[in-house]
């Protein structure tokens, strides 16, 4: 766990070196809503030059917690973790936006932000486990069906867990670390019960949660000896090794690949989805300007609840990026990103295609 994460703000308040990759700063053009602005707000509150009031809290909750600033920091300053810690202080003081407390109640009772329905208990055991999560379970189950089909094609039959449960990232991002830890604890307990030695996740967001956030923000150790792996790079390696066979699609739509939310937090994964898409699409996917290590998130972040207008702007910016490169459709694998893209794509006359679904539909017979 990071000791005194809020102190990171003291180091970041005078650094402007990540300004260029902050999606919120770039969307709002507001100095306050940029990494150094948030760090300054935190440090100036400590110096008595500012207080946590409606206005400053609104600014604090405008950070997307997307990880771009940290990913581009040569010393990997944990500013997102500092902001999450500052939000936790605000929550403690009962000064957070009302929606944070509403979301706390929802997550506490239902363990997901979407519906009033509890997760499905895990009861499988296997050497390999797959975390399902809340977005896939409640919003886009076709992602899971497709991913399982692809894994089966390479001989992997995972035990499922976390069916309908948040990773805890949302709670952490909202400034609710205790709740986040409870959710994470439950996920890890379920993982342990599967007996798995290999943990698959479907998205960079889940990879970040299990691989980094649980430890750094929540002080929660993953079970020793369990290997964490994202499904997409695993499938790409199988394709490379000749163990996965995909047919070319007849679909001639010019798709752009949208690196999913949190992709910047997993720097070695950028080539994998592209390699898989090249095997299926008639022509390589078009590349957005904001891609790979500089990929912007879609709006499926805590912002969707605290700052819905900003969340929408983030997603629309991805779609505009696709239009600018003359794409007619977008592809991504993250269920949350897909849901947000689908919501606004019609305004941009763009199709939205699920990544796993596309690949599963083109498994060679």
């Amino acid at each position, binding site marked *: 766990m990071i000791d005194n994460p809020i102190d990171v703000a003291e*180091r*970041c308040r*005078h*650094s*402007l*070196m*990540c*300004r*260029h990759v902050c999606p919120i700063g*770039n969307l709002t*053009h*507001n*100095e*306050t809503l940029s990494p150094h*602005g948030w760090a*300054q*707000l935190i440090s*100036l509150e400590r*110096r*008595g*030059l*500012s207080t946590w009031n409606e*206005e*400053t809290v609104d*600014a604090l909750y405008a950070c997307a917690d997307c990880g771009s600033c940290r990913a581009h*920091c*040569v*010393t990997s*300053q944990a500013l997102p973790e500092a902001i999450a810690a500052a939000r936790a202080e605000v929550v403690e003081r009962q000064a957070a936006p009302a929606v944070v407390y509403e979301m706390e109640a929802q997550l506490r009772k239902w363990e997901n932000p979407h519906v009033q329905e509890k997760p499905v208990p895990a009861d499988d055991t296997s050497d390999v486990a797959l975390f399902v999560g809340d977005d896939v379970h409640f919003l886009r189950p076709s992602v899971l069906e497709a991913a399982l089909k692809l894994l089966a094609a390479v001989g992997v039959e995972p035990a499922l867990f976390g069916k309908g449960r948040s990773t805890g990232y949302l709670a952490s991002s909202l400034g609710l670390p205790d709740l986040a830890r409870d959710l994470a604890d439950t996920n890890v307990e379920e993982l342990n019960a599967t007996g798995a030695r290999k943990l698959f996740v479907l998205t960079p967001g889940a990879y970040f949660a299990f691989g980094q956030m649980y430890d750094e923000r929540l002080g929660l150790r993953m079970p020793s000896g369990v290997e964490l792996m994202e499904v997409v790079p695993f499938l790409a390696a199988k394709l490379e090794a000749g163990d996965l066979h995909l047919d070319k699609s007849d679909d001639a739509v010019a798709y752009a690949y949208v690196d999913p939310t949190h992709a910047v937090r997993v720097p070695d994964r950028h080539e994998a989805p592209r390699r898989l898409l090249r095997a299926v699409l008639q022509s390589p996917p078009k590349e957005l*300007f904001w891609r790979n290590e*500089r990929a912007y998130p879609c709006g499926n972040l805590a912002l969707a609840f605290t700052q819905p207008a900003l969340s929408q702007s983030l997603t629309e910016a991805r779609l505009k990026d696709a239009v600018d490169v003359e794409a007619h459709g977008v592809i991504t694998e993250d269920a949350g990103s897909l849901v947000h893209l689908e919501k606004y794509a019609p305004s941009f006359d763009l199709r939205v295609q699920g990544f796993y679904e596309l690949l599963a539909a083109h498994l060679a017979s």
Partner: protein
Amino acid sequence: MKTDSDGFSDSMSGSTELASVVEARKAGRYSPLKFHYEMIRSELEEIVGTDHISTEDSDRLIYSSDWFWAPQMWLDRGHPLPLPDYIVHPGSADEISQILEIANKYDIPVIPWGGGSGTQGGALSLYGGIIVDLKRLDQIIDIDEQSLTVTAQAGINGTQLEWALNERGLTLPHYPASANCATLGGYLAPRGSGTISTKYGKAEDLVLTMQVVLPNGRVIRTPGVPNHASGPDYMRLFLGSEGTLGIITEATMQVDYLPETRLLRALLFDDLGNAIEAGRRMMTRRLDPMVIRLYDPDSTALRLKAILDLELEGAYMVVGFDGDPDIAALQEEKAMEICSDLGARDLGREPGERWWNHRYDFYYPPKNLKMPWMFGTTESVSTFDKIKRIWEAQKVAVEEGYSDWDVTYIAHFSHWFHWGSAMYSRFIIEQPPEDAEEAIRLHNRIWNTAVSASLENGGMINEHHGVGLKLGRYMRRQYGEGWNLLLTLKQAIDPNGIMNPGKVGFGR
């Protein structure tokens, strides 16, 4: 501009009027001044739209400081700075024009804001007023791949512009350490230099034409190319004016193809004078290096250890050549002959390349200069016959004059010309006075010492950071009678004195 803010030292600071305003605010009443303030806000809002104006306290607080040590220290010690009254984010030159008309009408200061990354206090709202944040003007208008130019709005971020050019195999060969946060307008307004300016020139050498909004609101475009003979080149008035004579809103810049090769090499000299001579010979023989970065012995010992983990004694030099591989290799070979003749030890490519790849690491925390330290960059530029003398004079004056404070003086020679070099010197005190007033006075005294040493030995006080608030007090001394010419021009162009008052030596 008078407002009824809680008195964070805006234009009314210290006045009895302010006290009454604050009292009224505490009593839950708006002051009479609030009425006028709100009326003006509405006028500004009509121009830029409700989403692009802020009078929120948090925004005013964040926009109260740029990257100058003094205001950062002031905030660090828990003291408020003068606040801007309004922050606007215009979306066009026409909107800026209308904003300036209002500013003239009500006599309100206007402070242009790019990335807020200036080190001289050029973006401080000393008298309150309107911060005109240009970051909404972030569009690339045209990339001309035949003439090799890019035309972009002034608020575009430096690295984002570079990424867009790189997609076409092009580069804007202006690589300042601030590229990640600075804007195109911020490159030009203080006459900035980048790492490879020795070959490609400063930002001011790369600009062909600019659109500028004058203080009276008129929008002008300078001639399409700079190298003409149709009278004086008035474009240059705005380069270095730092927003005191107008607001740059668009620029056409020369770009280059991404180089086929970049050759970096490191050398070590026992003697700084020999190293400077090596640089002089490379420049006067027109070997065209993209970079010569020469660290004085103290800088070599301190900074190279911190940044590159190199422990060396002497004067460390990195030399780089780029472009056509054959030509670059030949240029490098000739440069190595010069350095060898002057006793340099060739350290090879790896440390040179490591320097190139990590040259900006110094600006990331915790490697950066940081509070509560005191620091200042007392750079100078001069001809070859004077540059070493200026270094010696500054070093002696600062180190001996402030030995009680255990001051560290380091320097490197960063930007080279056919006739001379820029010396990027810096003082650092790791345990400055805790009291903010005492700290700022000590800081300014060291500055006076260093700048005087430079001026007395024939230096210009600055090569690329600009003047801002910090160096304004030296302008008359630097320019002599010529300063009156600039004052006359300022009065003619900005008769109401609304443009960035208190900067570049111009008053309110």
